[in-house]
């Protein structure tokens, strides 16, 4: 039975469906699911007004485990289904759950268009840099040299970078988080939901079976502080245990450098301050990847613009201002003649 009875104050548990979760034990998806249950409860979301739409892949099973409305669609097409849903029902809170293969390979075109149109949906891209559900082929985000059943000698094609792609599509909200960082993920979900227009959140997710440890050079506990930079709007981009490492812009090369405050004449004033509305900065930040740079996490870019469906609704209202359509009248407009 799918019937869910809604109590007065919803808890994270209320957002969990009665279906048994079927991801592999230890999969990063469990942590993301849990973070979502809690985040929606914290935000006071309503079960009946929340819809999860997904494509195909491990991540796309997500809707089955939510006690909200859910639509598990076809490979790569969730953004298109979600766009139609938002056009029909702009008031609904629509989330798209997708993976690196679903969103950036077979569904690359739809991701591009949902972002550039700025449809008010929240897109969560679980990036594990591998095809899990089809048993371990390399994905469009796999790094060069990735060995897999389809690339036994290592992949040779250059990977896509999810946040850079999203910015290139003119996304107005781009963020990145890590599966196991529940608190930060919850904050990103809240920001994404509050953002009107398309929000894009890349979630670094570990595939324990086919690509285990691929992100450990920045997610492992012992290196996390030195290899992660959690950016916050208006704050200097500092990281490291001692918070003395930072990012500086080399104005001659237009590249970002990692520096240490207090070394080689670097002062606190040299450190870049994060500005969510600065698209150029966002582009630079999105492209920084370990091991040369720390992984940039948090809201990389947020600069709202009118959403697609809001403008469509406005045009409909404008057309309707002259009154609702009368089909009999419409068919009799123009040149007609009577036979008696």
């Amino acid at each position, binding site marked *: 039975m799918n019937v869910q009875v809604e109590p007065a104050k919803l808890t994270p548990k209320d957002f969990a469906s009665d279906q048994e979760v079927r991801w592999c034990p230890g999969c990063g998806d469990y942590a993301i699911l849990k973070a979502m249950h809690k985040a929606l409860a914290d935000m006071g979301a309503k079960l009946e007004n929340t819809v999860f739409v997904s494509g195909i892949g491990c991540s796309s099973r997500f809707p089955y485990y939510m006690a909200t409305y859910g639509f598990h669609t076809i490979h790569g097409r969730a953004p*298109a289904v979600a766009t139609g849903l938002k056009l*029909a029902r702009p008031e609904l809170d629509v989330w798209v759950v997708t993976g690196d293969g679903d969103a950036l390979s077979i569904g690359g075109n739809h991701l591009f268009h949902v972002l550039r149109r700025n449809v008010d949906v929240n897109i969560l891209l679980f990036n594990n840099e591998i095809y899990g559900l089809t048993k371990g082929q390399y994905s469009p985000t796999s790094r060069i040299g990735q060995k897999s059943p389809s690339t036994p000698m290592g992949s040779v094609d250059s990977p896509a970078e999810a946040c850079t792609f999203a910015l290139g599509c003119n996304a107005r909200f781009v963020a990145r988080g890590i599966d196991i960082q529940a608190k930060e993920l919850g904050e990103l979900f809240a920001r994404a939901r509050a953002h009107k227009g398309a929000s894009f959140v890349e979630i670094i997710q570990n595939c324990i079976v086919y690509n285990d440890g691929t992100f450990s050079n920045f997610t492992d506990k012992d290196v996390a502080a030195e290899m992660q930079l959690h950016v916050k709007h208006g704050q200097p981009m500092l990281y490291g245990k001692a918070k003395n490492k930072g990012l500086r812009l080399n104005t001659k090369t237009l590249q970002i450098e990692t520096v240490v405050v207090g070394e080689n004449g670097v002062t606190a004033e040299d450190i870049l301050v994060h500005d969510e509305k600065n698209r150029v900065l966002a582009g630079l930040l999105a492209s920084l990847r370990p091991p040369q740079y720390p992984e940039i996490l948090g809201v990389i870019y947020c600069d709202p613009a009118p959403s697609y469906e809001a403008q469509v609704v406005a045009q409909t209202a404008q*057309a309707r201002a002259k009154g609702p359509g009368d089909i009999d009248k419409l068919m009799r407009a123009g*040149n007609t003649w009577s036979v008696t």
Partner: protein
Amino acid sequence: MNVQNVPKSELDAIVVRFAGDSGDGVQLLGSQFAQETALAGNSLATFPDFPAEIRAPTGTTYGVSAFQINFGSRVVKTAGDQPDVLVALNPAALMVNYKGLRKGGLIILDSGAFKDKEIKRAGFTVDPRTDGTLKEFRVLELDISAQALEVAKPFGVSQKEALRTKNLWTLGLVSWMYDRELNSTNEYVARKFGADDPVGQANLAALKAGHAYGETHEISGDVSPVQMPAVQFEPGTYRLVSGAEALSWGLVAGAQLAGLEAVLASYPITPSSPILHILAKLKQFGITTFQAEDEIAACCAALGASYGGKLGITASSGPGIALKTEAIGLGIGTELPLVVVNTQRAGPSTGLPTKTEQSDLFLSVWGRNADAPIPVVASRSPGDCYEVAIEAVRLATKYMTPVMLLSDGYIANAAEPWKIPSIKDTAPFPVAFHTETEGFHPFLRDDKTLARVWAVPGTPGLMHRIGGIERDYNSGNISYDAANHQKMTDTRAAKINNIANDIPEQGVEAGELKGKLAVVGWGSTFGPINRAVHNMRAKGFDVSHIHIRHIWPLPRNLESLLKSFDKVLVAEMNNGQMLTLLKSQYLVDAKGLLKVSGQPLKIDEVESAIRSQLGAP
């Protein structure tokens, strides 16, 4: 020379074909002449026949655009087998079209366009006016180009703009020949250009000059004006309607009868795009249109809208429908309403984008992965699209299923006089969304229709998940159970098969319910088959016309009806798809009259096939 444009005895109907370069404005010329003819009370059918290239190189045969109209004082059912009159605005238009003209027919040609270079470019080695090429026809040469230039120049328009008024000049002349009023064209030109625009004024002057030329100049006596009495149509208000218009309006009416707003999601494709253009202007009717990034997204967005509780519609043509098939399968699996409009064109692949064909029947009925049945309905003429579109919406919403609505390139672009219906003539079929939480699951079914409940997001207490993975019959949850898959497959098939009990029984359009020969057709072959069967019956042949609107499921009495005839002939514009369908369903020994030339079936072709089937000489 005394050139009468048709023998008096044949004046109950006449076929005129206008042809020229793609840039000559032939489609406008033809459609305005059709409008004038409709307002004069004649019955008519049109056939716009244009190239896929927007502006092919000037003067080439592949750049020729044509518009054929058959009009008469009796009911006209096709655009005509053979033109009686050909208006050729350049040598290439003559080259492409003169062989199709009836022997003894009239050719009016623009001699100003017959310069050596143009004649060679059209592929004539010698000027066809001088070497006997046209000896079987009557030829009226007029320097239309010079006439148009002379009239238009004083308005201060460019040489190019002045020359482009030659379509209006020609329209004026032909309007004079058939005693047509110019009011509707005058209004059209004024509306298009604005009253003060010099180009508009030049065009109006050309129109008037062409008419005056016929009235007062040299050709008086050569081509005498023809009176074409009005047809006695049944009482009502009429208009000219194209298939794309009637189909769009039928979708609007269908949505209103269902009590739903609609979302049309489409990707531009010839010849389907007019539906998107028409509906984009109808936002006040609760129609939202969405030009998607591709065909797949269009179908997915339409399905997303249906999931959200609106009527999802997607419209395309063959290649686009092929791309949509996976999403249609999702609609079948999740049992959501969806109207898929397929304005068929010649294929495979890109094929002939502007030419008509009926070759997507297999694609519609069987063209999906797995066992994935859907209802398929087909319109038979421009006006019929209205009713068939309403029927598609009714089936989609009542049975919670994607429905394929078939039109074709000929129907979409052709126009016919149409007795304008009222939405009040059709009984409403309002949709009731499910709201009861007690005992709810998303695949609760109506005992009679087997349709599942439509529970839309936003409804408290009915939260549920659906998707492409097989659903448990008793809960809707995902299920990999073998017996359940069998049961769900059987249920999906039974639901669609059961629609046969909710559609009219098959009758005949002409003739008796049994006899020697039944000619079976579907879609736009209605006109030629019907006319041919009537003609042959008048000559004493025992032949009937069966026209199938519901392609799938087929009407429940069709088998017994077909078997009441000694012979069955299926006439269609494909390589035998309905023929195969009927044979496979009923083991009936049918024969085919099959044509895939990109051109509509001709009455004469059907008559010959009837003769041949009945062993007549």
